[in-house]
């Protein structure tokens, strides 16, 4: 046997798959957002709101990744958006291969935006490139303002942070200024959007950012 020096990250093969997938999405003029958060942060409620607000402007599809069940996909379909449910077979994250499989079962020709609702988990999803164009992290007020200290990688890797359930701020010791400061320290260029998907507060800014990213992806060669 011979020794072969590699010095490659363990995700090298997945990273190549992810690059290929992004090139394919570019060709198709479809933007993929990877939404990551802890379980119960309100991802599906946030998406429901976005779909309702933007469905006249862009064609939205959703890929729901869960270890089991199709509960979330059913909620999205009820709003009239295309939804597919992907099961990760017990894995705690999505990778590029699983994402590609999900995308292949969708009608991408009639789609501008695909949201990948990743498995609820703040650790593993941050480690694997899914082929998404932008990564969005969701943190809800009840989870607490110390999350950036506990899960720094997720905050470092994300392009945008949506802080959900701001209507619950009066009931929790959640220091918004402190969160913003902690997040900026990890990631100076991250966009931060505090919202209440239930009441609609802050949704306009987040939706404007989604539309702008989509426009840039679809027009820039």
């Amino acid at each position: 046997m011979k020794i072969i020096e590699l010095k490659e990250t363990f995700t090298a093969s997945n990273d190549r798959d992810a690059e290929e997938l992004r090139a394919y999405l570019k060709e198709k003029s479809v933007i993929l957002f990877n939404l990551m958060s802890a379980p119960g942060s309100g991802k599906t409620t946030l998406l429901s709101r976005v779909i309702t607000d933007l469905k006249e402007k862009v064609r939205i599809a959703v890929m729901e990744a869960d270890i089991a069940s199709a509960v979330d996909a059913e909620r999205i379909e009820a709003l009239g958006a295309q939804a597919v449910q992907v099961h990760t077979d017990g894995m705690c994250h999505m990778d590029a291969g699983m994402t590609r499989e999900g995308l292949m079962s969708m009608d991408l020709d009639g789609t501008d935006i695909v949201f990948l609702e990743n498995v609820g988990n703040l650790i593993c999803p941050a480690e694997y490139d899914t082929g998404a164009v932008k990564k969005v992290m969701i943190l809800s007020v009840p989870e607490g303002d110390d999350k950036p200290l506990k899960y720094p990688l997720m905050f470092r890797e994300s392009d945008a942070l949506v802080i959900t359930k701001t209507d619950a701020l009066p009931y929790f010791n959640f220091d918004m200024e402190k969160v913003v400061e902690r997040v900026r320290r990890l990631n100076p260029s991250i966009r931060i959007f505090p919202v209440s998907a239930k009441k609609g507060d802050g949704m306009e800014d987040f939706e404007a950012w989604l539309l702008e990213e989509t426009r840039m992806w679809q027009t820039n060669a």
Partner: protein
Amino acid sequence: MHELGIVTHVMKTLTDVAAENELTRIGSVTLEVGEVSGVIHEQILDCWDYMCTKRGPLFTGCKLVLEVLPAVTYCSSCEQTYPTIRFGRTCPHCGSGETWLLTGNECTIKEIEAE
């Protein structure tokens, strides 16, 4: 990090390497694991042995060797480094909290023995 996911992706990357280099059997894999990467050695070794029995002839009997890389933190206030495990986030030289992990979060395939 979750160990089964790591093992799956290491094997996927090595399957590409084997195809490129026309390898039929990998005898051992050396993985460099950072001290604060969160990888649990006992679990990754168990997952490895289990997956070797599932992944066909390329990995039959393949051994996983773990090499630990020390965790080092850099302090941007006094521009010195220190061992992360012993002192955590606070710089032992000047007491600052403006510190960044330099190394220790790796999970890298260093080398393989193969034919």
